[in-house]
């Protein structure tokens, strides 16, 4: 009995450590998210959450499903590589509900200048001009058909 008395303080210390260890385990199991560490040092569910974010741009294939005629016109013109939403804006909502979400036509006076206004830093081969000198404020659409912008003999096609 005397021997046990001497070691009592050790037992107490061990008990304190045990309590700390158990509370650590308790906190760990309750506060670390379930999926943490499944793939690495992060919450695996975050990947699912990021993947589930909604899209704003539907992609050119979605446009082609209905607007085949425009895609054909565009394919033979100078704007063949420009995707529809690059000018018409994000239209995933229109794809989901074509009847009630009607996209606005872009203003060619502003839109075309974004790419074609002359700038020294633009590649030399890229067609660019000073819109002020070229049309004097007239909308590009007056002469050019944006889907196939090269002028045809006799004006706008």
């Amino acid at each position, binding site marked *: 009995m005397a021997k046990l008395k001497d070691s009592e303080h050790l037992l107490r210390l061990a008990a304190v450590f045990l309590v700390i260890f158990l509370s650590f385990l308790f906190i760990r199991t309750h506060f670390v998210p379930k999926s943490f560490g499944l793939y690495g040092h992060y919450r695996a569910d975050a990947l699912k959450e990021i993947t589930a974010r909604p899209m704003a741009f539907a992609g050119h294939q979605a446009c082609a499903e209905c607007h085949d005629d425009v895609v054909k016109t565009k394919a033979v013109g100078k704007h063949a*590589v420009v*995707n529809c939403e690059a000018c018409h804006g994000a239209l995933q909502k229109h794809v989901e509900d074509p009847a009630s979400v009607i996209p606005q036509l872009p203003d060619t006076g502003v839109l075309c200048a974004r790419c074609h206004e002359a*700038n*020294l830093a633009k590649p030399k081969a890229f067609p660019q001009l000073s819109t002020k000198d070229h049309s004097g404020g007239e909308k590009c659409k007056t002469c050019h058909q944006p889907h196939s912008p090269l002028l045809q003999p006799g004006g706008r096609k």
Partner: protein
Amino acid sequence: MSITRRQILILLPAAALSWKYLLAGAPELAPNYTQSEHWWGMLIDIPKCIGCGNCVRACKAENNVPDGYFRTWVERYHVDDFHIETPTVDSPDGAIDGFPGSKEQGGKNFFVPKLCNHCVDSPCTQVCPVGATFDSKDGVVLIDEKYCLGCRYCIQACPYGCRFLHPEKKTAEKCTLCYHRITKGFTTACAENCPTGARQLADLKNPSDPIHEYLKTHSVQVLKPHLATGAKVYYSGLDGSVR
């Protein structure tokens, strides 16, 4: 407890069946998408960039980027003939409305689109104290916005200045390489809207991706290669003055 021959014969096929599920690992994120089959990067063809800012606007629309902050932006470089190491760089409002006409004559002028480089050894991931920023198995550096403390270590660690603290959420934000799009088979919003094809999403694990032929036949460079971050945004025609 002893096991009979009959029990072994029943258990063996059952074990063989379950082995397949053991090997399959974690379930898929999206239908028909397996993380281990992809390794994402981007190709930027500088001689094709016209500085229109379409990528910046597209990124904002796709990812609800707050005003005045950018997940991607375009810089304009002016390099004087006699000062090739000290270029003049501007990026008015991240080029969200394109660029005004250049005033400076002579020298070299060109645009450089920038975004997160999705580094293999990303400094931002290394400094995150809680594991809120991480490298996915398909090579994209992502942020868990529910887990981010907003301590800003990663913002300081990124050598490319690609991160910012969201003014309302108070969590770190940056380009996700449109992870919600590329896992569904779409390209990124910036690449979708680039009118000249200067930005192209690249899957380096896909043998039929044109990136492989491009990398073999062109001189490409990454930004700050001396930092050995393993950046995966490849620039074609990159000038030595670009930082």
